[in-house]
């Protein structure tokens, strides 16, 4: 299997405070890799470090090129799409404008992609001329994912998409992610605090604690690990 992403000794933080203390992870083509970690472990920081939203040191190899020195908009152009924690939609723009700006890094025609996403999320089509700010949480998350995928990325970074969503909506969302993964071969790096559903769709799992990867393994190993079950699965 070919490797999409590999980080080596990835360090990042805010001001003088280092939050990530040398993270090494990798994502292979077609995988859904889940990173579990408690609140404040540095999951969001890791995602932001990969997509170039914050200054970082170390190596971020994407398709065998080091992108650790690139700024965020160039990382996007390379083929990484990042759905930030809290969705990060553009509330003042309409749903359709949100999708159009999602394709900003592309130079080709993307009208067909918009129709495709309306097919995947019919509710977005119903609301295409509404401002994104008026959507419900679940709709916003769908919009955020569709917008990210408008750039036709090779890797999708997804930061706690389940946050604030009803379990049913979360399940629906994860099913879409899984379907995209199996149908189009999209690689996904998914960060979650609430792990039950995430483990169901994961190919591989990392555990992040206070800025360091402390273990990795298959979803099954984690589901059967008592300590992990207590901390992240709530049962």
């Amino acid at each position: 299997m070919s490797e999409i992403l590999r980080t080596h000794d990835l360090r990042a933080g805010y001001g003088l405070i280092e939050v990530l203390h040398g993270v090494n992870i990798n994502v292979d083509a077609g995988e859904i890799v889940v990173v579990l970690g408690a609140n404040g472990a540095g999951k969001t920081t890791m995602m932001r470090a990969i997509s170039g939203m914050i200054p970082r040191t170390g190596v971020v190899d994407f398709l065998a090129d080091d992108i650790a020195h690139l700024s965020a908009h160039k990382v996007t152009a390379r083929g990484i799409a990042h759905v930030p924690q809290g969705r990060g939609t553009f509330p003042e723009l309409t749903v359709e404008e949100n999708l159009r700006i999602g394709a900003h890094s592309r130079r080709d025609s993307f009208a067909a992609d918009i129709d495709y996403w309306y097919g995947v999320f019919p509710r977005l089509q119903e609301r295409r001329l509404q401002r994104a700010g008026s959507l419900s949480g679940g709709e916003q998350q769908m919009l955020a994912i569709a917008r990210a995928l408008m750039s036709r990325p090779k890797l999708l970074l997804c930061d706690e998409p389940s946050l604030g969503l009803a379990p049913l909506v979360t399940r629906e969302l994860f099913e879409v992610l899984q379907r995209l993964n199996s149908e189009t071969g999209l690689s996904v790096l998914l960060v979650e605090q609430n792990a039950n559903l995430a483990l169901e769709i994961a190919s591989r799992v990392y555990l992040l604690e206070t800025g360091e990867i402390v273990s990795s393994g298959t979803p099954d190993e984690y589901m059967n690990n008592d300590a992990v079950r207590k901390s992240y699965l709530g049962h």
Partner: protein
Amino acid sequence: MSRFFQYLFDGLSSGAIYSLLALCLVVVYRGTGYLNFAQGEMSMFCTFLVWKLNDWGMPLWLAAISGMLIGYLGGATVETTLIRPVAKRSQFAVFVVAIGLFLGLNSLAGAIWGAPPQETMPSLFPNEPDDFQRIFGASWRYQSIGILIVGLVVTGLLFALFNKTRFGLAMRAVASNADSARLVGVNTGRVLAASWGLAAAIGALAGTMVAGTTGEVVPGLMFSYFVYASAAATLGGFDSLGGAVIAGLTIGVVENMAAGYAPKWIGQEMRLGVALLIILGVLLIKPTGLFGEQKVSRV
């Protein structure tokens, strides 16, 4: 009745300039969240350049376009080199740099072109004593009609830019959520520089038209216009382009009517007082303006 139309028309014409300058403020504000206190002085300085180019023999319209181009480059450069580096620190730092620009450009103009420089400025439009049309008993000077048309055309172009182009969408995205804009691949730095450049270019055009009506270029050219423009931006809600335009025209009409119908109390001297009252009133009663989002942060 003819008086009414006269005040209305004169008001619309001066309001068109307030609108243009208010648009400059709004374009910068939407992109960066800053009020550019040096906007008026940037316009004034560009107007001096336009005047100088014209003085050297360039046709005025060409000089105005050149002035706008220089303004664009200057505005973009100011944003990248002076504003953005200090913006990380605080809004106050941005304010101080803008004040530095204000004082710097103002005194530089005075230093280069003499103090007080009183350069005669031709108008972009026919401006002989009999260059007017009588409509509804009011005299509609070609100069004022020209300003109104230019104002509307620029506004229309700006709307088209924001709503119909890829770059305009990117600008709106940055205004809406700068972090997400970076994540979808927008080069936010370029957008911010372009916002300042655009504002400076429009400001150059507005300044040229102001100087054309007064017939002279002086360092204090834009002081009062900047106040009117801020009043318009405040009334319009700071982040609304349409709001700025409507508010600018409204303020122009209101202050002309006030000055015209109460010549003893308000007259030409106290027109500015009307603008001050509008700013005070709006900020006290509805700080988000008439068309704005909840962006002006409230205590």
